């Protein structure tokens, strides 16, 4: 049983991208200050179809198509936020945040602090991340570790349709810049999502599954892959927990410590390259806490290769963890003690 289903307590099933769209629509209906800007989000409906019909519902002013100028539009969002609006920027692929890093990191993240609190920058930057679409190295990165490392940014990675809506609603409410990283492969997945605008608070991990033997902590699309792996592992009598941090900053690590202390084994799964990635922080927190004394085996990270994402489908697949890799890693880890 996954905690989100209990949380949501609804039978209505919609897709992840419908959930994102619903969060934006409900926020725009409730608050005139909210508007959206990005490339091809208007009549086109968004590169991944996320904005869909919003242009027809809210018009060209509030669902604002922009030129191909990522730095300019993120900067415009910063300025609009300083002037009292609540902008939501869509960056077509998270790889293109590289174009806008100055406004994200040197401006949005630091303004509140640099000004001694005199102003804040309530904005949301949404961007799809990840591989699996054959779009190759410049359209498939997972850069969440960068943003999580920047003080002043909150970073969210929704793994379910319910979280896609609930976390985005919370992000739009937040008085700080929030980076919401949506996984391309999740857009078409679906799940129960409440019709009302129910917030999922930032900074709360979700325990997706409780097991006895091993704790898997996974982000993004690796959450569903880990849950699939959990089913297969159960058939071999290996009973695993699956924890989804959901928010990388601020990070709620209590449930991780609690669960790892119980199972004694931690498998940390991410799509991004392992070297200096987000799960290194999880591993470090375990190694630096009393949890380390409860370990029955060393901590194990399963990550994407330290390589760019290649084009060829079989190469792309081999570059990031798949269900079978998670099963294998968990099985090996069980043997290591």
């Amino acid at each position, binding site marked *: 049983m996954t905690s989100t289903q209990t949380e949501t307590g609804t039978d209505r099933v919609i897709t992840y991208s419908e959930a994102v769209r619903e969060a934006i629509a409900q926020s725009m209906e409730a608050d005139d200050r909210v508007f959206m800007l990005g490339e091809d989000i208007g*009549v*086109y409906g968004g590169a991944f179809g996320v904005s869909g019909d919003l242009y027809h519902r809210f018009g060209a002013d509030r669902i604002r198509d922009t030129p191909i100028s990522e730095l300019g539009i993120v900067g415009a969002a910063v300025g609009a936020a300083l002037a009292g609006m609540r902008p939501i920027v869509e960056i077509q692929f998270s790889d293109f945040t590289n174009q806008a890093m100055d406004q994200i990191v040197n401006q949005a993240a630091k303004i509140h602090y640099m000004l001694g609190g005199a102003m804040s920058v309530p904005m949301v930057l949404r961007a799809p991340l990840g591989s699996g679409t054959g779009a190759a*190295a410049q359209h498939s990165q997972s850069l969440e570790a960068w943003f999580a490392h920047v003080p002043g940014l909150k970073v969210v990675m929704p793994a379910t349709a319910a979280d896609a809506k609930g976390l985005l609603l919370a992000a739009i409410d937040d008085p700080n810049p929030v980076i919401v990283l949506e996984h391309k492969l999740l857009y078409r997945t679906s799940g129960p999502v409440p019709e009302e605008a129910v917030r999922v608070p930032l900074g709360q991990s979700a325990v997706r599954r409780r097991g006895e033997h091993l704790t898997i902590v996974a982000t993004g699309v690796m959450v569903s892959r880990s849950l699939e792996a959990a089913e297969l592992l159960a058939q071999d009598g290996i009973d695993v927990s699956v924890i989804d941090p959901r928010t990388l900053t601020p990070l709620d690590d209590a449930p991780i410590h609690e669960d790892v202390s119980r199972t004694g084994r931690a498998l940390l799964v991410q799509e991004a390259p392992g070297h200096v990635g987000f799960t290194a922080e999880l591993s470090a927190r375990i190694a630096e806490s009393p949890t380390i004394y409860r370990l029955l085996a060393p901590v194990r990270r399963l990550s994407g290769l330290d390589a760019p994402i290649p*084009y060829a489908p079989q190469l792309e697949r081999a570059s990031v963890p798949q269900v079978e890799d998670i099963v294998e890693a968990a099985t090996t880890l069980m043997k290591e003690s």
Partner: protein
Amino acid sequence: MTTTPGADHETASHALLTMWTIRRFEEAVDDLFARGLMHGTMHLSIGQEASATGACLALRTDDAITSTHRGHGHCIAKGADLTRMMAELLAKETGYCRGRGGSMHIADTATGNLGANGIVAGGIPIAAGAALAFQLRGEDRVVACFFGDGAANEGAFHEAVNLAAIWKLPVVFICENNKYGMSFSTEKSFAIEHISERGAAYGIPGVTVDGNDLDAVFDAVSTAVARARAGEGPTLVENVTYRWKGHSKSDKNLYRTKEEIAEWRAQDPILRFEAQVKESGLLTDEEVQAIRTRAMEDMREAVRQANAAPDADPSDLLDAVFARA
């Protein structure tokens, strides 16, 4: 340097074959994709063949180009091998990038193609840098930098064109204005009529030409290349053209009308050039037919050979990240 294609039999034949080859290549890709035999995403340049062909005709083999996500035409026009291109798109080990790069990252050192680019405007600073290398070494080589109308609103365009202008780098900036950056029309993304007007902001010449007129493109780029080679610096050439197909596979064409598309299809750059050279008597019906047949056969052969090649090999992914000294 060659003479205007419309004025020389050999050049005309070569140019026509190049344009048909690009057209057939893109159609083959479209077809393979539709049949699920190709994955990823593809950006086709059908309708823009005269721009790539006319521009590359004005270059020497040792001149370089930088290309874009919509780069098959540039790659072919600069002289790349069809089989290796197709093999790349089919994710084969024999492809230009051994299946690592795919459509958006094909490069060909042999013909001076420094690479397509998945990043809009990503190739523009790179072109300026290659031109700087030529200038520093005192070589008389030129770089032709292809990019779209949408790319002209990226900061990379601004910074790179200014660098080239103040250092008088041997580069020709070729803006292929096909009226849209994905769904966003140039009417909405620019408050000026011609993108070439931006040349003045950097103190370099800017010229707008009918990008579906092979001779016009060739002449404009030739003038710019001569200027660059002479050490007089860059030029901004705007080729006004049109993309017949959707931006990529996900495109439902909601942002433009069937009529507009039909209008532009009526100005097929290839048929226009065929009519022109037949009218002027430069090429006969038979010669034109032979060229069409040749393009079709070359393409079929390339697809055949590419399909027969071994798939990309996943074994050495990590070894390939860093170059060895």
